[in-house]
């Protein structure tokens, strides 16, 4: 007896079969064109890069980063000092609301400028295997919704997270490490930004008018099964995505900080200085043996820096790093609205 699943597997409509070779050729060309035209993310979401098990076989070395937690910075603009993550994030939300929209969100024809120095896990794949390095790059980008933009990327160098990773690279024939291409590149007009899994147009971003709790529910409900190591962890990541290098008007930025207040597990680390010496408030969330830290300016609510630090073992991580190892970091040197390519805020 044939059951319904077998019948379904044998079901073939009286139509011409797929022309796989030609379809693949056309799709390949379309993908290549898309890859060339697609605006590049300024830097990867490094904690996802670090996630594949067995990707990194040995211990990572500590990355030098100047971050003095609890250093008692004198910051005259801030009063009173927050005592909890909720207070710190509410302070950021209010600062975000006070920002003039024209300073943080470009009008049609204007550019959103970012200048970033980032170190991330950079994995190289060849037929015989792979190896991972820590790569540092500097990138400036001018992105516009209506005009062609530009990016200028400089690769500052590579380090090896462990001698074993370097050995793997040597066994592969010491190939050149891929990075985001260095040099100056034109960027296609970018009409929107990501909010979780949604892609919002510039108009939708400009008209954004949700509260923090509503945005939190929107992001939480939008997380797809399998994304992130947990639903809360993914929401934390998505809020970071929306704050770091995408233009966001004041209402959206305020809602993002208020949504962050509601993410379970977010802790306040205190007043700190970022790697450029700028006073900042720091919050963090720990999951899977690493702590992800976000540093933001209490006066402007701009995200200043972030990093990921190993704080404990995690079988899924696939590599062995001592506590305190910084496995990724980024410093957002400048961001803002400008009128032309080459101009900085």
């Amino acid at each position, binding site marked *: *007896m*044939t059951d*319904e*699943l*077998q*019948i*379904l*597997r*044998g*079901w*073939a*409509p*009286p*139509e011409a*079969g*797929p*022309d*796989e070779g030609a*379809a693949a050729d*056309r*799709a*390949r060309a379309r*993908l*290549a064109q*898309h*890859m060339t035209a*697609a605006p*590049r*993310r300024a830097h*990867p*979401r490094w904690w*996802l*890069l*670090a*996630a*594949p*098990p*067995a*990707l990194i*076989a040995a211990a990572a070395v500590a990355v030098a980063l100047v971050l003095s937690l609890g250093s008692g910075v004198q910051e005259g603009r801030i009063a009173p000092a927050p005592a909890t993550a909720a207070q710190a994030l509410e302070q950021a939300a209010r600062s975000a609301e006070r920002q003039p929209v024209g300073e943080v969100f470009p009008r049609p024809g204007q550019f959103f400028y970012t200048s970033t120095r980032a170190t*991330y896990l950079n*994995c*190289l*794949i060849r*037929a*015989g*295997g*792979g190896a991972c390095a820590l*790569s540092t790059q500097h990138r400036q980008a001018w992105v516009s919704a209506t005009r062609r933009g530009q990016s200028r990327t400089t690769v500052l160098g590579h380090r090896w997270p462990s001698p074993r990773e370097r050995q*793997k690279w040597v*066994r592969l024939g010491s190939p050149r490490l*891929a*990075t985001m291409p260095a040099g100056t590149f034109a960027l296609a007009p970018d009409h929107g930004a990501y909010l979780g*899994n949604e892609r919002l147009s510039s108009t939708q971003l400009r008209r954004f008018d949700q509260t923090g709790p509503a945005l939190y529910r929107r992001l939480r409900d939008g997380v*797809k*099964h*399998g*994304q992130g*190591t947990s639903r809360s962890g993914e929401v934390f990541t998505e809020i970071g995505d929306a704050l770091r290098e995408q233009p966001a008007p004041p209402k959206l930025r305020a809602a993002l900080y208020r949504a962050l207040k509601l993410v379970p597990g977010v802790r306040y680390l205190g007043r700190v200085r970022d790697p450029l010496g700028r006073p900042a408030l720091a919050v963090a969330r720990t999951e899977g043996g690493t702590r992800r830290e976000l540093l933001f300016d209490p006066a402007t609510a701009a995200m200043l820096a972030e990093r990921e630090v190993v704080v404990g073992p995690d079988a*899924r991580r696939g590599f062995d790093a001592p506590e305190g190892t910084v496995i990724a970091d980024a410093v957002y040197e400048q961001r803002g609205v400008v009128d032309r390519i080459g101009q900085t805020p």
Partner: protein
Amino acid sequence: MLQADHDAPAQPTDATILAASVADPQAFTALFERHFARIHRWLHRRVGAPLAEDLAAETFTRAFDRRDRFDGAYADARPWLFGIASHLVHDHQRAELRRLRALARVRRWEPGGDDLTAGAVARVDAAAAGPAVAAALAGLRAEERDVLLLVAWADLEYEEVARATGVPIGTVRSRLHRARTHLRAALDLPEGTA
């Protein structure tokens, strides 16, 4: 997979390719070459040509845009890709239903099919039942059709269907059960154990 024993050459997993493609976008083409044919074939059975080609191409451009959102804890990207493809089919549900209803009216249906694992008898049965199957598929709720066709045509396991569709595995089981019951009734088959 990159393994601890790096003396043994091994193919990189999908997760590794996707991780590498964040910094090196060209690496993504390896994922395309590995999975395009499978995704295209599945879409072709669901929506026919030429929409299948368009949606298959779109599946990979969307996957490229979201490549930094793939959870590296999973080595295999097939459920993720089929999830994107299913989502695209939803956007063209009217076209899918139009085609299924048209197929339900086809009188002459020759045995065929590219799934040889179905066996010759099943393919003959499928040809005889062809229009009824099309009508039954058109009568399913979209979520039930997704689960059924991910199991039957994409050969995904329940857990993989859960990842593809973003619902708990229990929901996958219940949707599959309803879909199979509906299909069995439409084909006038005896009660089974699905």
